[in-house]
C-alpha cells in the first residue's frame, strides 16, 4: 500500500515536472534579410525595464510586406531597453536606445555598423537630428552631443543646454532644443545652438516650460509642451525675436511640403481621473494659420479614441503612417494616402511604436 502510494506520488511528480518544464523553446524562426527596396523602418519603444524595444520593416509596395524584429535577426541580439528615436540619414539608420543607453549606426539592413555607449555623465540618449555629416543627440545629462557620421564611436563634442532635453530640430544653422523637466523643476527655456561654433546661441526664457516635441516648417518653429494641468499644447516659436505664442494643441507634429501636419490625442480626465482620448488629425497652413482636417477615419473609426504614438509622413509620396499604442498590447500602424484615404493597417512586433524611418 505504502509502496504503491510512493510510486503514484513519484509518477505524479515526474508527470508534473514534464508538463511544466518540457515545453521546448520554439524552433528557430527563419530570419529573412531586410530587402533593399523601398521600406519603412518602425521602432517599437517597448516597456521600460523589459528589454523589449524592437525594429520592424514594412514594405509599402510589396506583398508579404512586413518583417518583425529585423534588428534582432540582423544582429543576433535585441535592441535593448526603450527605443527612443530613429533617423535615416545618408545611407545609414541611427537609433537611440535610452534605457540601454546607446546610439547605434545601422546599415541599410539594420545591422550594427558601430555604436556609442553613453557614460554616466553623458546621461541617457534621447532624440536625434542630423546636418552636414553630423548626428546630434539630446541627453538627460542636460547636453546635446555631436557625433561624426563617419565614426560615432567617440563624440565630437557636447553643449550644455537646459534640463533633460527632449526633441531637437535643425533650422538653418541652428539647432533648437526642447528643454523639459528635472523633477521637480520644469525648465522654461528653449535652447538655441549655433551649429557653426557648436555653442549656445541663446537660451530663450518663456512663460511656458517642460517642452517636448519640435517641428520646423520653413521659417516657422512649432514646439509642444506639457501644461501643469495635464494637457499637451502647441507653441509657435520665433527664433530670431525669441517670441513664443500659444498655437493650439497637438501631440505629434510632422513638417511636410511646407505645411505642419498634426495629430492631437487629447486626454480628457473626469473627476475620478478616468481618461478618455479624443484624437483628430489636421494640417496647418503656416502662412494663414488655418487648420483643416486630413484623414478619413470611416475605415478606422477606432483611431478617434486611440492614443497616437507615431505620426509620420513618407517624404516620397505623402502617405501618412499613424501608430496607435496602448502601452500594453503591440501597436497598430494605420496607413493613409496623401489625400487621407485609408490604405491598410498592420500590427507591429512590440509595444508603443514611436518612430518610422523611410529608406529607398
Amino acid at each position: 500500500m505504502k509502496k504503491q502510494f510512493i510510486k503514484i506520488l513519484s509518477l505524479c511528480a515526474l508527470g508534473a515536472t514534464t508538463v511544466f518544464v518540457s515545453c521546448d523553446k520554439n524552433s528557430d524562426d527563419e530570419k529573412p534579410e531586410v530587402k533593399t527596396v523601398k521600406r519603412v523602418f518602425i521602432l517599437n519603444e517597448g516597456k521600460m525595464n523589459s528589454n523589449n524595444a524592437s525594429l520592424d520593416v514594412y514594405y509599402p509596395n510589396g506583398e508579404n510586406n512586413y518583417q518583425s524584429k529585423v534588428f534582432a535577426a540582423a544582429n543576433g541580439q535585441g535592441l535593448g531597453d526603450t527605443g527612443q528615436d530613429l533617423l535615416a540619414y545618408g545611407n545609414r539608420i541611427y537609433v537611440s536606445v535610452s534605457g540601454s543607453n546607446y546610439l547605434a549606426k545601422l546599415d541599410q539592413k539594420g545591422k550594427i555598423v558601430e555604436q556609442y555607449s553613453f557614460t554616466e555623465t553623458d546621461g541617457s540618449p534621447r532624440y536625434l537630428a542630423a546636418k552636414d555629416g553630423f548626428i546630434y543627440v539630446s541627453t538627460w545629462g542636460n547636453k546635446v552631443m555631436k557625433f561624426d557620421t563617419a565614426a560615432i564611436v567617440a563624440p565630437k563634442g557636447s553643449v550644455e543646454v537646459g534640463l533633460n532635453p527632449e526633441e531637437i530640430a535643425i533650422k538653418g544653422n541652428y539647432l533648437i532644443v526642447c528643454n523639459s523637466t528635472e523633477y521637480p523643476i520644469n525648465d522654461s527655456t528653449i535652447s538655441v545652438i549655433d551649429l557653426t561654433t557648436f555653442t549656445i546661441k541663446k537660451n530663450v526664457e518663456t512663460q511656458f516650460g517642460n517642452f517636448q516635441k519640435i517641428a520646423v516648417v520653413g521659417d516657422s518653429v512649432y514646439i509642444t509642451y506639457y501644461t501643469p494641468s495635464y494637457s499637451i499644447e502647441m507653441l509657435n516659436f520665433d527664433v530670431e525675436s525669441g517670441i513664443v505664442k500659444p498655437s493650439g494643441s497637438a501631440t505629434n507634429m510632422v513638417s511636410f511640403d511646407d505645411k505642419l501636419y498634426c495629430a492631437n490625442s487629447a486626454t480628457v480626465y473626469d473627476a475620478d481621473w478616468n481618461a478618455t482620448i479624443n484624437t483628430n488629425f489636421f494640417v496647418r497652413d503656416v502662412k494663414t494659420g488655418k487648420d483643416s482636417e486630413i484623414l478619413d477615419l470611416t475605415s478606422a473609426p477606432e483611431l478617434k479614441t486611440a492614443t497616437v504614438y507615431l505620426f509620420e509622413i513618407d517624404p516620397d509620396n505623402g502617405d501618412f503612417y499613424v501608430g496607435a499604442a496602448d502601452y500594453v498590447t503591440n501597436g497598430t500602424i494605420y496607413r493613409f494616402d496623401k489625400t487621407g484615404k485609408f490604405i491598410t493597417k498592420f500590427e507591429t512586433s512590440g509595444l508603443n511604436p514611436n518612430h518610422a524611418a523611410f529608406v529607398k
Partner: protein
Amino acid sequence: MASALLWAVPMFAQSDSTIHRDVEAVDVEAHTQKRQAMPTQTMSAIEIQQLGVQNLADAVRRFSGTNVKDYGGVGGLKTVSVRGLGAAHTAVSYDGVVVSDCQAGPVDIGRFSIGSIETIALTIGQPDGLLQPASAFAQAAMLSISTRKPNFIEKQTDARAQLKGGSFGYFDAQVEAARKVRHSTLSGTAQFMRSRGDYPYSLPNVDTTEHGRRQNSDIRSARAEINLSTADSGRLQNHLKAYGFYSERGLPGAVIFYYQQAKERLADKNFFVQNDCRLRLRDNLMFRFQAKYNYSWNRYEDTNVKYTSGRYVELNTQHEGYFSMAGLWSWRPVSVSLAGDVVYNTLESDIKDNPQPRRLTFLSALNVRAALQRFEATATLVARHASEKVEFGKRPDDLKRLTPAFSLKWSSNRATIRAMAKATYRIPTFNELYYTTLGTTGLKPEEARELNVGFDFGTSKFDFSADFYANNVENKIVAIPTLYVWKMANYGEVHILGADVAAGTEFDVAAVKLKLTANYSYQKAIDVTDSNSKLYKSQIPYTPLHSGKAAAVATFGKYSLSATTIVSGKRYFLEYNIPDNEIEPYAEFSATATRSFNIGGSLLTASLSCLNITDNQYSVIKYYPMPGRHFQLQVNFTL
C-alpha cells in the same frame, strides 16, 4: 488538534483544564492546519530548518495557491498574493497583531527574519479563531507569523544562538535568551545580517546570452526584540513586545541589457511596541485587548545626472496608533464575538505635493458561530469607517463599508468538508491617493469576492486536501498611462478559477522516518474588463496556470536529509498573452542535510543546503534573475 480556540468553544463548560489548554493554544493556533472551515497551511521551525528554507518568502511560496513576487536576492522585495487577488489583499500579522504599510500597501515579507519563527500560517479567508481583532477578518487572506516561544523544560533559562553563512557574502547571526520569573517570561533577540548579493546570472538575448553579476544588490540589517509574556493559570495571558529593525540595501533593479547603472539605495527603520492581552472572565466569556504603536521610516536615494544636482532623495515617515478590543461569549451551541479596532495612520513625506495625509479607521467585526454535532456554521460581518485629513488639496470621501463572510463545515475525526464565501476589498494606499502626479484621491476600494469549497481527509500517516475556488476582482486599482502621465484609476475586472490540491504522508522504513508532501495549484485568472480588447480573457501577468511543490524529508536518528522542488508553468510578464511576453517555466531543486549533536546537555544542529542544485537560471519577475546554485550552512545552538 483542537487548538483553535473558538472551534472548541462548545467544550468550554466541560472542564477547566480543557479551557486552559484552549486558551493557551490560541497563541499557537497556527499549528492546526486541517479541519478548518477556511483553507489553512502551516510550516514549523523544524520544517524550515529541515527543508533549508531561506527566508519567509521561500516558505510561503511552498504553500499552494500562493504567488510570491520575488525580485531576487536577499534584499529584493518579496510580496505574497493569494489566489490571483493581488498582494494588497493579503494581511500579515506578527505575533497576533496586524502589520500594515499604509504608504506602499503590500508588506515586504522579506523583512521578517526566518530565524525567529516558530510557525507560519497562511489562511485563505480568515483565521479560525473568533477572538481576534477586527482587522483579522477584513481581508482575503492572512499570513500569520508567530515567533518562537522559549522552552523551559527542566530549566529556568533558555538560550539559543544561530549562525548562517552562505554564498555571495551571506552572513546571519542571531542570539536569543529567555528567563522565567514566576508566571512571566522575559526574552530578548538580537540579529545581524548582511549579504553582498552579487550573484551571477545569465539571461537569453535572441541568439546570445547576457552574462553578468547582480550589482547594487547588497544588504545589511539588524533587528532586536524584547518580549515579556505573562500567563496566570489560564485566566490572563499577556504578551508585550518591543521590536526594532534597521536595514540599508541597494536596489539592483531590472537587468537592463548593455548598461548596468543601478544606483538606488533604500534605508529602513522600523520600531514598534505592541501588547496582546487575553482575559478569561468566566468559563464562557473572554476578552482580548491589543494595542500597538508603530514607527516606520525610509529613505530612498537614486543617483543619476537626470536629477537636479545628480541625486534624488525621498524621506518618508509613518506613524500608526492601534487599539483593539474583542469579546467572545459562548452559549452552547452558539458563540458570538464582537471586535472593534481603532487605527490612526500618518504619513510625513518630502515627496513633492505630498499633503501629509492622516487616516482614522474604525473597524468592527461581528461573528456568530453555531456548532451542532459535526456541523459548524459561521457568519461574519465587518464594518469599516475610514476618513482622511490632508494639509492641502483634495481628500478622498469617507469610506463606509459593510462586508459579509459565511462558512460552513462538516467534520469527523478523519475528514472535513468546507465551504466559504467572503467579500473583501482593499483600500487605496497613500501612494495611490497622493503620490506626485500619479496619485488620485477619487479612487474607490478594489473589490474582491471569494468562494471556496474543499475537503480534507487524513489519518496519522496520510493526509489529503483539495480546495476549489472562484474569485473575482473588480474596480482594480491600477496605473493608467497617457501621453503625459501615469495616473491611478479604478479599472479592470478579473475572474479567477482555481484548485489547490495537497497530499502528505509519513511512514517508517526500518529506522528511517520518511515524510513526503506535495501540492499542485491550478489557477486561471483572466482579464474580463473589456470584451472588445485584445486582452479580453488573457491570463493576468505573473500567474502560472499550473504550479506545484514537493518535498521529501528522511530522518534517521540525529540525521535528516531533505529534497524539495518548486515547479512553475509558463507565465506572462505583461498583460498581452503573446509568446514574446512569456516567462519560461522553471523547476528549482534544493537539498539539505541536517545533523544534531548533544554536547553536554546542549543541543547543536547543523544544516548544509545546496539551493537551486541544477543551477537553473530562472526569474520570478522578468529581468530580475534569481540566484543560481548556491550554498548555505546553518548552525543552531541551544544551551
